[in-house]
Structures are given as structure tokens and as C-alpha cells.
């Protein structure tokens, strides 16, 4: 075991050295890289070149680029012109998770000139089944950094900018203004509304993907024909997120990958298609060929892809209409009544006498085997791992009719009753529901396990899986 520990430590140090050296060599190489003019610089460069009467570099790809990107240049849809555009394009990927990783892989591979990648989170082992830019060795490393490092090993010729920060109303407009397109690869409602507003205010298209369980959805919001010289519908503007969903959903109707699960290839498919739409958009495909005003629904359960028609832009939309009510970014967590980081959710809705710590519960369980343990997680989670002797009453089914059985169990129990869930939030909700309806005489014996099974694993039994 000592050998394993020692070697693992050595490998970590070597990886860090490798990371540093790769960065170093990239910085040196950058000096010699043929500089491709960005959109803004292009005109000036062309003028200068005309004056000097030299070959227009911007209209000819260098040898290395023709060779490297030949397989996609061969496509009439991309071609030399398209490749030039790709190499001059700047794309901001928000979220280096299940969607952002595959999306960024293909954008980097395609030679998109500049990719910014934003994520405030660190790599966790539970991410790796879907977040394909991160490996075991990247655990606890910033996702933005880890993603940028992997992308650099895929393509050393492009500029990568990791943003190890949380995109918020005070920095989002400024950061995104440096880019041409935004990819929404985030995992929560407030950030989705914010990115939509950023996209409208900065007049940038938003390629929006989402995935959960076995399903994914994809569309482009805020498309403007004006910025695409191939698009004849000069004045056409596609709907924005608020045109289609003017009001955020109720918080209790919103799922998440960590609570509901997700099959790795689902965000893989959607993220990959986000990259494809981004590439098509950059090379100048017109809006009838893009997922504009249309929504792709992917259901991995029966392998169905469905393309549905969305409503057009709302002339009265709060943000993208001619006379918008919203003219600057808002506090989206307040607007949506939801937090953007679900990990921070830390309910505290019970009186102290109805709570018990993991240590205290362990002592109580040692003293008696009559203690009733009520696990309120889903049947699936209960099957994954549970405390010995616990009974399962999933919170989602704990309503009017079903609660009676549980109340009977509690009344019949001659000992204490403890509610358990994963993190200690749902168990409080369940206890609250029970306390609201049960007779006073039983109230004092009911508790919830503070911090849930995560706390149990941390303070009592390290063998209990944390998921």
C-alpha cells in the first residue's frame, strides 16, 4: 500500500510538471503561429496588404491548417472559407460538464480560433462518466482548468481561456463580449435565464443544450440573420428563451443530474450536436438549416429524435422585443426563486429537538434495535445503499393517501423514529409533513438525520458510499 501511495503522489507531481511544461511550450509556440486576423482586425489587415500589394494571407489557409483540417475542408458545407471563419471565431462555452466537454472537444478539434470555458466547480469522481475532458487524476482540480488542459492536448494551435469563476450578473456581459457565440452547457434555471439575457443584450446567438436522465433538448436562441451574410432573410430574428418560456418553472418541478441521474451518452449526444450547430453557424449556414425556431427532442429510452416547431419571436418579449422591459441583467436567483448552485442548498426548517447528528444516531442504534429508520430517498437510491433495518418511504410518494401507513408505523413504534435522506434536506421536509399532521404525543420522538447519509459516511461509517 505504501508503494501505491508513493507512486500516486509521484504521478501527481509529474502531471503538474507536465501541465506546466505544456503551457510553457504553448506560450513559446504561439509567437511563431501564423496569426489569423479576427473579424475586427480583418479589414485593417486587408487594407494594409492591398497597399503593400502582397498575397492576402487571410484568404488562404497556411499549409499546416489545410493538412490538419483537410477532412472537414473537403466538405462543401465548410470548405476553405468555412475553415477560415472557424479559425477566426471565438466561442464561449459556459459549463465544463456533461454538455460542455463534448461540445468543446469538437470545437477544439475543428480549429475554432478561440475557446473560452467557464466553470466555478471542481472535478468530482461522479462527473467522469459523462464529463469526458476530465480524468481520475483531475479530481478536485478546477473543471475549467482541467477542460482547457485536455483541449490543449487535442489542439495546440488554438487559444484557450479557462475561467475558473462563477458567471454572474456582474461579470457575464463583459466576459461574453469577447466572443461571437455562447454555448449554454449549464445545469440550472437561473443561469439559463441569465445567459439568454446576455445573448440578447450582447446580440450574440445562444446554442442551448440540456440533458437529464435519458432525455436531451437542443435549440438556438437569439439568432440574427443580420450577422450572417449568407442569410437572405436580412431582418429575421429567431425567438429567445423568454419568447418560448416567459416564466421560470416552479422550483419543485426542476430536476438535476445529481438528484435524478443522467446516462453519460445523453449529454454526450446533445453536447456533440451543440458543437455541430456552432460550426454550421460560424461557417454561415442560414437559419432554415439551423435549429432556429425549432427544438430537437432526443429520448434515449426509445432512441427517438424529434424536431418540433417553436413559436416565432414574441413582439412583446420582455427582453428581445423592440421596446424591452428588461435592459440589464437581473438577480436571477431571486427571479427564478432558485439557487444556481444546488450544492449550497442547506435547509434548516426543524426545531433542534427534532434533529439528530450522525454520531448520536449511531449511539442510539447501538443501544436498541427498536429504533425506526425511515429512508425517504427514491426506491432506486434505497436499492443502491441503505442503513440496516431502514424502511423506504420515498418523499415523492409521501402525500395524503400514502402518509397514513407511515403515521401508523410511527404510532406503533415504541422507540424513537429517525428520517434519513442523502444530504439531510428531504428528510426535514418529510419530518415537517409528518409533524404537521401527527398527534402531539408522538412529536417528540421524531428526528431527522442532520446532513443525511453523507454525514453518516463522514462521521460514522466511512464504508458507506457517498454519491
Amino acid at each position, binding site marked *: 500500500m505504501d508503494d501505491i501511495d508513493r507512486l500516486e503522489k509521484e504521478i501527481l507531481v509529474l502531471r503538474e510538471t507536465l501541465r506546466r511544461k505544456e503551457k510553457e511550450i504553448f506560450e513559446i509556440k504561439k509567437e511563431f503561429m501564423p496569426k489569423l486576423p479576427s473579424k475586427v482586425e480583418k479589414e485593417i489587415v486587408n487594407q494594409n496588404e492591398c497597399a503593400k500589394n502582397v498575397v492576402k494571407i487571410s484568404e488562404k489557409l497556411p499549409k499546416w491548417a489545410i493538412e490538419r483540417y483537410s477532412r472537414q475542408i473537403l466538405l462543401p458545407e465548410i470548405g476553405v472559407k468555412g475553415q477560415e471563419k472557424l479559425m477566426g471565431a471565438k466561442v464561449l462555452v459556459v*459549463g465544463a*460538464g*456533461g*454538455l*460542455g466537454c463534448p461540445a468543446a472537444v469538437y470545437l477544439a478539434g475543428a480549429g475554432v480560433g478561440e475557446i473560452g470555458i467557464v466553470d466555478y466547480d471542481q472535478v468530482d469522481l461522479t462527473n467522469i462518466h459523462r464529463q469526458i475532458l476530465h480524468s481520475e487524476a483531475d479530481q478536485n482540480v478546477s473543471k475549467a482548468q482541467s477542460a482547457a488542459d485536455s483541449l490543449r492536448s487535442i489542439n495546440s494551435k488554438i487559444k484557450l481561456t479557462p475561467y475558473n469563476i462563477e458567471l454572474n450578473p456582474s461579470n457575464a456581459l463583459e466576459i461574453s463580449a469577447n466572443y461571437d457565440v455562447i454555448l*449554454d*452547457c*449549464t*445545469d*440550472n*434555471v437561473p443561469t*439559463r435565464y441569465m445567459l439568454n439575457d446576455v445573448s440578447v443584450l450582447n446580440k450574440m446567438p445562444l446554442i442551448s*443544450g*440540456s*440533458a*437529464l*436522465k435519458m*432525455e*436531451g*433538448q437542443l435549440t438556438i436562441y437569439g439568432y440574427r440573420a443580420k450577422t450572417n451574410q449568407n442569410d437572405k432573410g436580412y431582418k429575421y430574428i429567431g425567438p429567445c428563451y423568454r419568447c*418560448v*418560456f*416567459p*416564466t*421560470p*418553472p*416552479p422550483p*419543485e*418541478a*426542476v*430536476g*438535476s*443530474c445529481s438528484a*435524478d441521474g*443522467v446516462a453519460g451518452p445523453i*449529454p454526450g449526444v446533445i453536447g456533440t450536436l451543440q458543437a455541430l450547430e456552432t460550426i454550421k453557424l460560424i461557417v454561415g449556414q442560414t437559419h432554415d438549416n439551423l435549429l432556429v425556431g425549432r*427544438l430537437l*427532442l432526443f*429520448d434515449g*429510452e426509445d432512441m427517438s429524435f*424529434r*424536431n*418540433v*416547431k*417553436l*413559436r416565432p419571436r414574441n413582439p412583446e418579449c420582455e427582453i428581445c422585443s423592440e421596446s424591452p422591459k428588461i435592459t440589464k441583467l437581473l438577480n436571477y436567483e431571486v427571479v427564478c426563486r432558485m439557487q444556481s448552485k444546488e450544492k449550497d442548498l442547506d435547509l434548516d426548517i426543524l426545531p433542534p429537538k427534532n434533529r439528530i447528528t450522525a454520531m448520536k444516531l449511531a449511539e442510539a442504534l447501538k443501544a436498541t434495535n427498536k429504533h425506526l429508520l425511515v429512508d425517504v430517498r427514491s426506491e432506486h437510491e434505497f436499492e443502491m445503499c441503505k442503513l440496516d433495518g431502514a424502511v423506504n418511504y420515498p418523499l415523492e410518494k409521501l*402525500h395524503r393517501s400514502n402518509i397514513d401507513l407511515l403515521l401508523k408505523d410511527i404510532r406503533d413504534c415504541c422507540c424513537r423514529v429517525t428520517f434519513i435522506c442523502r444530504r439531510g434536506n428531504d428528510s426535514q421536509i418529510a419530518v415537517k409533513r409528518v409533524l404537521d399532521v401527527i398527534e402531539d404525543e408522538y412529536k417528540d420522538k421524531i428526528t431527522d438525520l442532520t446532513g443525511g447519509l453523507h454525514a453518516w459516511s463522514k462521521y460514522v461509517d466511512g464504508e458507506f458510499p457517498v454519491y
Partner: protein
Amino acid sequence: TMEPLKVHIQFGGGAELLFDKIKRREVELPALKKYYPDCKHEKWLIKDLLVWIKDNLLKERPELFLQGDSVRPGILVLINDADWELYGELDYELQQNDTIMFISTLHGG
């Protein structure tokens, strides 16, 4: 026209969880007047269908599907693969063999 109206009802994006996790259903609606004798109009509109769904298919937590007389925010209603807003939303008149989808928007990534 007393023949029952056949419609395909589909749920997705998590909306199916409120309906026994069944994503696709085929239902036959009786003559509207038979079902709602007090109803002022003759033909089934989507708003009548929403009430029918609430009475016949929705088991628990109607607030996660309906809000007022419409669907809750975050559920997209599609009539034959097109946003219901293109067809008059609640007042759309159901046709034989229509497919009505209720898709909850996803936010994960």
C-alpha cells in the same frame, strides 16, 4: 358526429412522472356534451382536454402540471409537433388522431 375522438397524448422531459411514468397514451374522448353537459361549445378544445387529463390521468400534485386553466410554466405543449401557440393555445379544436405532447423543459447539463 357521435363517434369518439381519438387523440394521442404524449409526455416527456419528466412530465410523464405525474402520469405513472407512461410516456405515450392513446385515448378516446366521448362526445363533449356527454362529458361536460354544461359546456357551451360542441367540440373538444385543448382547455377541455386539460380538465379531462386532470380528472382521468393525473394522480397526484396537479400543481406540477396545471396552473390556473393552463399548463404550468416550463411545460411546452405541442400539437402535431408544433408549439400550441401557433394554433391558438387553449382554444385549439382537437381533430381526429391529433398528437398532443406535453414536454417539460430540461435544465441539466
